[in-house]
């Protein structure tokens, strides 16, 4: 099965549920096999399959999500982790603050942080930072302008940094500096009930 692992990883983050992810991937392959005659040989098969995956998710599974869809993210500072760790050397000799932070982050922290992102940002981050699609490819997969892709990535990545930093701080591996007084006030995300 071509790209089975990659499709499954993205399906897991989309559905946040293994059973639904399996169904979504199976549906993707069924549609892909069925529509293969429409695929232009020599073009990007991986992006084509991911587009099927994304459309299938939107048409079938998004409606079933019980959690209310967050449509927006409160703004987060750029370079969030750097701002809090920049120049901050821990007392442990030879280890930088960021080494300790990233060593403390587990795989489940990563997936939890991704799952906390609103779906549109989560999907963009998955396609870019996990699957390594180009911005143009992501725009084609999601059928949105490339500017929209970059905007979602920019905000999604900032929020991800904030989440990862919080995980490290909760574990006590990062000194928790006082909040930067120049920080903007955080706004509550807008929830859109489906």
């Amino acid at each position, binding site marked *: *099965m071509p790209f*089975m*692992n*990659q499709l*499954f*990883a993205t399906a*897991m*983050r989309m559905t946040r549920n293994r059973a639904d992810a*399996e169904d979504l*991937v*199976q549906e993707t*392959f*069924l*549609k892909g*096999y*069925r*529509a293969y005659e429409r695929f232009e040989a020599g073009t990007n098969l991986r992006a084509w399959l991911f587009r*099927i995956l994304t*459309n*299938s998710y939107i*048409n079938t599974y998004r409606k079933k999500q019980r959690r209310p869809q967050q449509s927006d993210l409160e703004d987060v500072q*750029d*370079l969030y*982790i*750097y701002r809090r*760790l*920049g*120049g901050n050397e821990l007392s442990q000799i030879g280890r*930088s603050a*960021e080494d300790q932070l*990233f060593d403390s*982050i*587990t*795989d489940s*922290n*990563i*997936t939890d942080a*991704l799952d906390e992102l609103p779906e549109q940002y989560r999907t963009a*981050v*998955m*396609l*870019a*930072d*996990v*699957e*390594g*699609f*180009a*911005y143009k490819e*992501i725009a084609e997969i999601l059928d949105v302008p490339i500017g929209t892709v970059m905007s979602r*990535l920019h905000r999604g*990545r900032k929020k*991800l*940094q904030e989440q*990862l930093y919080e995980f490290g701080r909760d574990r006590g591996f990062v000194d928790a500096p006082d909040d930067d007084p120049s920080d903007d006030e955080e706004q509550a995300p807008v929830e859109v009930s489906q």
Partner: protein
Amino acid sequence: MNLGSTSSDPLNTGANNDGVLNAGDCKPLQCDKAMKCIEGVRDPLASSFEMSSLRGQLSDCAPCRQAIDIEIKIKMTISPSASELPSADFRMRITETLSSIDLSKLDITDF
């Protein structure tokens, strides 16, 4: 980065009176070169080689290098951790399903 006399600090780098930038003085968000490098690292297609090369362009600025290092670490951390694999059982089931069905009879209209 030694800026020499910085009594006026024309670049607004926050350098101390000795003209030497210390960690926390330089502000990567105000450094165009650093921001270009950071955006380069964030490019989904940036390879490890390209990321190292971008980092090397900031060899004279420790704070900017640290900002880049963090971005690289985030990038290298997310990808493998978020790549959950399907079970062997699922692989077998889907292979059997696809090989046993008559695709011409499937009613898939929303592709």
